[in-house]
C-alpha cells in the first residue's frame, strides 16, 4: 500500500480533458432570435417611448429623452387611485379565490363523490365559451342586482376567471402528495385538519403558491371584466391605460403606464423563481 502515492484527491479532481466539440445549436439560436423579435422588440419600443420627449419619423432613435411624461403621469391622482384600486382588487380576488378553491381542489383530489367529474369539468366552462359573451350576459344580471360599477361586482367577475387555474393546478398539486405521508401523520396522532395544515399544504405548497402568483398577475392585468362591470366608477390600471391610449393623442402617457404595469409581473416572476423554482409550475400541470 505504501508504494501507492497517497493523493487520491489530486487524481480525481482533474478529469482527463475531452476534446469533443458540441455541434453549434443553430435551431436554438434561431428560436431565440425569433422570440426576441416578437417579444422583446415591441417591449423595447414601448419602453423607449416612455422615456421619450421628442421622436419624429424617420429617426431610429428619439431626438430627445426625458422624464417629463413620467412626472406628468405620476402627478395625476387618477393614476394613483387606479394603482391602489388594482392592488386592492387583485389581493381580495386572489385571497377569496384561494379560500374558495383550495378546499374544493383538495376535495377533487382526494374524495370521490357523485358528480365529481362533471363538476370538475364545469370549471373549464368559463373558459370554453367566448369570454366577452359570457361577460355581457353576467353584466346583464349584475345590472339587475345593482352590482354594476361596484368594487364587489368587479371582484365577482374577476373571481370567475381565476377559478380554472386555482382549481386545476392545486388539484394536481394535491394529487401529487403521497397519500402515505398523510396516513403516517394520522398514525402519529394528527386529525384530518391538522394533517392538511401540517403535511398536505406544505407538500403541495410551492405549486399552489405558483398558482396563486399566476392568479394575482392575471387578475392584475384582467381588463374586459373590469371594464365592462366596473366602468365608469371602478377604473383599474389596465382600464385606465386603455382609456389613456384611446383618448390621448400623446403616445407617451400610454407607454409610461404600460411600463409601470410591467413592474408587478416582473417582480412576481423574479419572486416565483426564487421561492418556487421552475419545477413547481411544471408539476402543477401534471408534468
Amino acid at each position, binding site marked *: 500500500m505504501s508504494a501507492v502515492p497517497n493523493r487520491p484527491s489530486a487524481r480525481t479532481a482533474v478529469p482527463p480533458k475531452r476534446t469533443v466539440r458540441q455541434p453549434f445549436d443553430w435551431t436554438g439560436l434561431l428560436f431565440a432570435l425569433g422570440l426576441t423579435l416578437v417579444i422583446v422588440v415591441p417591449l423595447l419600443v414601448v419602453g423607449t417611448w416612455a422615456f421619450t420627449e421628442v421622436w419624429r419619423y424617420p429617426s431610429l432613435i428619439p431626438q430627445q429623452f426625458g422624464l417629463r411624461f413620467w412626472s406628468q403621469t405620476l402627478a395625476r391622482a387618477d393614476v394613483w387611485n387606479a394603482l391602489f384600486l388594482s392592488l386592492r382588487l387583485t389581493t381580495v380576488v386572489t385571497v377569496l379565490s384561494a379560500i374558495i378553491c383550495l378546499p374544493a381542489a383538495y376535495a377533487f383530489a382526494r374524495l370521490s363523490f357523485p358528480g365529481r367529474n362533471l363538476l370538475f369539468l364545469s370549471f373549464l366552462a368559463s373558459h370554453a365559451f367566448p369570454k366577452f359573451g359570457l361577460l355581457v350576459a353576467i353584466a346583464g344580471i349584475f345590472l339587475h342586482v345593482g352590482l354594476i360599477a361596484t368594487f364587489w361586482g368587479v371582484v365577482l367577475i374577476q373571481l370567475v376567471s381565476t377559478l380554472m387555474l386555482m382549481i386545476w393546478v392545486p388539484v394536481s398539486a394535491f394529487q401529487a402528495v*403521497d397519500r*402515505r*405521508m398523510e*396516513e*403516517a*401523520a*394520522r*398514525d*402519529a*396522532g*394528527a*386529525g384530518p385538519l*391538522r394533517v392538511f395544515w*401540517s*403535511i398536505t399544504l*406544505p*407538500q403541495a*405548497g410551492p405549486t399552489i403558491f405558483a398558482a396563486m402568483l399566476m392568479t394575482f398577475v392575471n387578475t392584475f392585468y384582467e381588463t374586459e371584466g373590469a371594464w365592462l362591470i366596473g366602468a365608469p366608477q371602478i377604473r383599474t390600471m389596465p382600464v385606465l391605460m386603455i382609456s389613456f391610449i384611446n383618448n390621448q393623442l400623446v403616445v407617451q402617457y400610454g407607454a409610461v403606464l404600460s411600463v409601470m404595469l410591467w413592474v408587478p409581473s416582473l417582480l412576481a416572476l423574479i419572486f416565483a423563481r426564487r421561492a418556487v423554482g421552475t419545477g413547481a409550475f411544471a408539476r402543477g400541470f401534471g408534468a
Partner: protein
Amino acid sequence: MARLTIRNICKSFGSGFAVNDVSLDVENGELVCLLGPSGSGKSTLLRMIGGFERPSAGEILIDGRDITHLPPERRPTGMVFQSHALWTHWTVFDNIAFGLKLRRLPRADIREKVEQALAMVGLADYGQRMTTQLSGGQQQRVALARSLVLEPKILLLDEPFASLDQHLRERLRDEVKDIQSRLGITTLFVTHGQDEALALADRIVVMRDGVMEQVAPPDVIYRAPQTEFVAGFIGSMNFLRADVEDGVARHDDLTLPLPIADGPVILGIRPEAMSLTPSERPRAGKVHRLIDFGTHKLIDIDLTDGTRIKCMAGPDARAPRGLRVELGVSAFHAFRDGRQVYQTTSDLEATERSMSHA
C-alpha cells in the same frame, strides 16, 4: 405490553373479498409475519389494524378494547410504510418530534425522546438533516424511529424493506428484530419474501386470496405445510402427479408407499429430501443443469412427463448434462384438493419435537 385480537374480519371490495373471515390472536411481545403473494390481502389486513381501511365485518381488539371503529390517530398502533412516507419538508428531528408535539410534551422531553429514538436506530447525529439527504436505508430507519418514539402498543410494518437492496435488507431485518425483542413490542410484519418471514417471525400467517392458509411457527410452516399452496410458497418444493392404488403411489419415476384411499394425488418433495443414482432405464429422468451454490449444488432434472424437478446435492456432487438418473426420496408430503393428506413420519417427528420446545 399488548395483545392484539382479530375476530372474523372481512373486507369486501365490490363483489370480491380482499380479506375474508380472518381471525388471529397476537400475543404480547410476539412478532407475527403476514406472508403471501401480492393481492393476498395481507396489506389490507394490516391497514385495517392501523385504521386506514374500514372492515366490512368483524372486530379488532387491543388489550380487550374494541378499536374497530376508531380513526388511526386514536389507535395505539404505529405503522411503518413501504415507501417510508417521511415528511420531506421537515428535518429528521421534526419528523420524529411531530407526534410528540401533538401530544403536547414539554420541549425538553421531546428533545430527549427524539435523541434516544435516533440513537436506537443508529442515526444519532442526523437530526438536523433533511430527510431527502438520507439514503434509502437511513430513511427507513427514521421511519422506524418515528413510529417507535410514540411507544405504540402494536407496531405495524408494511413491507418496510421492499425497496432496499438485498444486503441492506438483511442488515435492517436483523436490527429490527433486535430492537423489537429488546423493547418487547407486539409486532405485525407484512412481507412477500419468505426468507424475511422465516428469519424474523415467531409465527407466520400465510395468506392467499384473503384467507389464512396456515398459522404456525416458521419451522412448522416449512416442515409441516397444511396445504399445497403453503408447501409451494415457503421454500422450494417439487410437485409430482401420481396415482394411489392399494396403498402405493405410482409415478413413472417413483413408487412410494402411501397409506391413503385410492385416487389421484400430488406428491410434494423438498429438494433436500431427494437423492439421485445413475440409471440405465431409457425413460428415466435426465439431468438438465447443475447450479453450484458453494455450500451445496442444485440439480435440475427433466422427467419424461415434462415436469422439471430440483434436487439438492452435496458440494462435491457431479452430474453431467443428459445423465439419466433414478430418484430416491427420504421424506415427502401428499396433497389432495390442495390439502395435505399425508406426510412421512421423519418430518412429523421433527416438527413435533420443535413444537414441544416452543
